[in-house]
């Protein structure tokens, strides 16, 4: 008990130095928490933006199409039939289904031309799966039966286009012959996924099918499902395709988000590196503190040993002091982190400072919002204390192991 009290008391002896170390630890811990919150927020938002605006939870396509899906070829398309659609729609857990015909096009405004991705959609079904309609900033999504287009605000800005302007989409039919889609812009959309804003033109499915000469065919079905249930629903779908002798396959949104997932894995590596640096800072601070204290108190240690204090009691004194610093640093770090994460979760971090995030493959438009990762707080606090205790043992033992006579006469 005496050693414990002495250890606590020693905490107040070098106030300035201890406060500085506590601050260093707090700063390192809070930086880690902020980074963790921001990275998790980025990951969560990226995944949501992929699911809600690009892929849905599950996509159904022929494997041959899926392999080359980025090529947007008009090969291996799915011929729409009611039986197939009903079977997918009625699969347990499927909340909506959007048939899509994806194609390459050149958007022409009469002066310039830019390569875009055309997407033929059935508007009612599309709205069941995707949230794009909530982000129409001018005009509206086209109504069923209406032959109009919707484009992103960035694309509109680039091509100097407004609602009610006419655009020409230069496409190639299934036979590779040029064709044009002359269509009026119904609305401009600014969705949280920059890909939607930068390079996609939505047109009615029947208009796209006619222009591309693909009859009643689509590239794939995008499905909205109960979140987190994707794998189970994919199994059900695959089973049902097998029973119906269809070669179709179902793919989770994760397969379309490979680059973001890879980025996320790299992020975890980065977070690990930050954590190592944070812990190293804490360890060095505490080791430094214990060594300095031991050097300052060499005579005192010698005196305590001469008065009968055992080595482990002296080690314990230093350990209590280091643990105190660890606890206080950890608490301060968690408090600072709490404040920072609250701010990040509420106001977010504008990525305009670092440029267009989509250039780095992050499908986020302008702000990343932090997320709460409570286990990270407790993990960091506990780890901080453990590191403090462990890193103090060796220097404390070095101090306690001194010969009392030499220590008392230490000059």
């Amino acid at each position, binding site marked *: 008990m005496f050693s414990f009290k002495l250890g606590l008391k020693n905490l107040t002896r070098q106030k300035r130095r201890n406060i500085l170390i506590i601050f260093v630890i707090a700063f390192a811990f809070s930086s880690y928490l902020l980074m963790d919150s921001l990275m998790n927020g980025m990951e969560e938002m990226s995944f949501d933006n992929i699911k809600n605006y690009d892929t849905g939870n599950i996509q159904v396509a022929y494997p041959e199409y899926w392999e080359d899906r980025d*090529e947007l070829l008009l090969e291996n398309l799915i011929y729409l039939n009611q039986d197939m659609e009903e079977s997918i729609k009625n699969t347990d857990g499927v909340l909506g289904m959007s048939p899509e015909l994806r194609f390459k096009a050149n958007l022409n405004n009469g002066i310039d031309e830019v*390569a875009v991705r055309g997407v033929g959609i059935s508007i009612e079904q599309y709205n069941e799966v995707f949230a794009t309609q909530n982000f129409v900033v001018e005009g509206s999504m086209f109504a069923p039966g209406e032959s109009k287009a919707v484009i992103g605000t960035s694309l509109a800005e680039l091509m100097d286009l407004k609602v009610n302007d006419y655009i020409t989409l230069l496409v190639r039919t299934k036979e590779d012959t040029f064709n*044009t889609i002359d269509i009026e812009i119904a609305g401009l959309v600014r969705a949280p996924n920059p890909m939607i804003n930068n390079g996609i033109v939505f047109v009615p499915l029947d208009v796209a099918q006619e222009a591309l000469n693909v009859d009643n065919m689509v590239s794939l079905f995008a499905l909205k499902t109960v979140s987190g249930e994707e794998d189970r629903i994919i199994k059900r779908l695959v089973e049902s395709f097998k029973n119906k002798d269809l070669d179709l396959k179902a793919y989770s949104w994760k397969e379309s988000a490979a680059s973001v997932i890879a980025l996320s894995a790299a992020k975890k590596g980065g977070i690990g590196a930050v954590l190592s640096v944070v812990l190293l800072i804490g360890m060095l601070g505490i080791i430094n503190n214990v060594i300095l204290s031991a050097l300052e108190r060499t005579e005192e240690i010698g005196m305590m040993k001469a008065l009968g204090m055992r080595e482990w009691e002296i080690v314990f004194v230093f350990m209590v002091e280091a643990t105190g610093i660890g606890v206080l640093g950890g608490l301060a770090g968690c408090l600072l982190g709490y404040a920072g994460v609250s701010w990040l979760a509420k106001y977010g971090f504008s990525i305009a400072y670092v440029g267009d995030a989509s250039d780095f493959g992050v499908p986020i438009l302008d702000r990343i919002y932090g997320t709460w990762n409570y286990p990270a707080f407790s993990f960091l606090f506990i780890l901080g204390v453990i590191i403090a205790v462990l890193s103090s043992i060796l220097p404390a033992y070095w101090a306690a192991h001194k010969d009392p006579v030499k220590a008392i006469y230490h000059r």
Partner: protein
Amino acid sequence: MKKIKGFLLIGIIISILITSLIITTAVEMTAEEIINKRDNNEYFDTAQMEAEMIIVSGNRKIIKTMVALTDKKNSFVEFTNPQDRGTKFLKREDDLWMFFPDAEEIIKISGHMLNQGMMGSDFSYQDVMEADKLTDLYDFKIIGEEEFEGRPCYILEGIAREGVKVSYYRRVSWIDKERFIGLKEELYAESGRVLKETRVNEVQEIEGRWVPINSVMENKLRKDTYTEFIITLIKFNLEIPEETFSLQNLR
């Protein structure tokens, strides 16, 4: 005097007969024959050419110069103007490669890239690639006759044959009745919209064949833009070493 009048009369009669014979022969030609005759006139075994491409877009005007070697299936083009010096294209049958000296890399141009304008011009890479015999790809018919730039022309319409892969669904060509050379051509999308128009401004007889030495390509989907193609030197039927059309030669 009477003798002179007689000769004059005979001369006029002979001229009328010859002219009508020519016209009759020409009128009786089928669309396919006309196209084939044009193709025979325009196509050659090998050629070496120096040319200039003037790309006009609004107020901007860019001039590119090039030398080209071509045989029936392959072409090799090297740009010689200062900005693009060293940029090379190699077309080998249905494949097209490009070499950028700055990147020191050979790029295969395929897929959607083929729709882009070649070196920023109104000629797409796909236009350059079209080498098949037109009569194999299109069903041609004569839809009229009219004068173009003072020259009597047949107007021929070609509609893509079913099942064949062609870039343009319909093409309308104005073909000089006497020289059998295309003077104007409109290229249409399946929707009926005219996409491109080519006009020949100047034709010269070189080595016994009529060659369009100045032609203009307009992308009709874009305003205020056209590309003028001027052949400054052309020689036919030269020996071209086989390795000219190799990827090694592209570097």
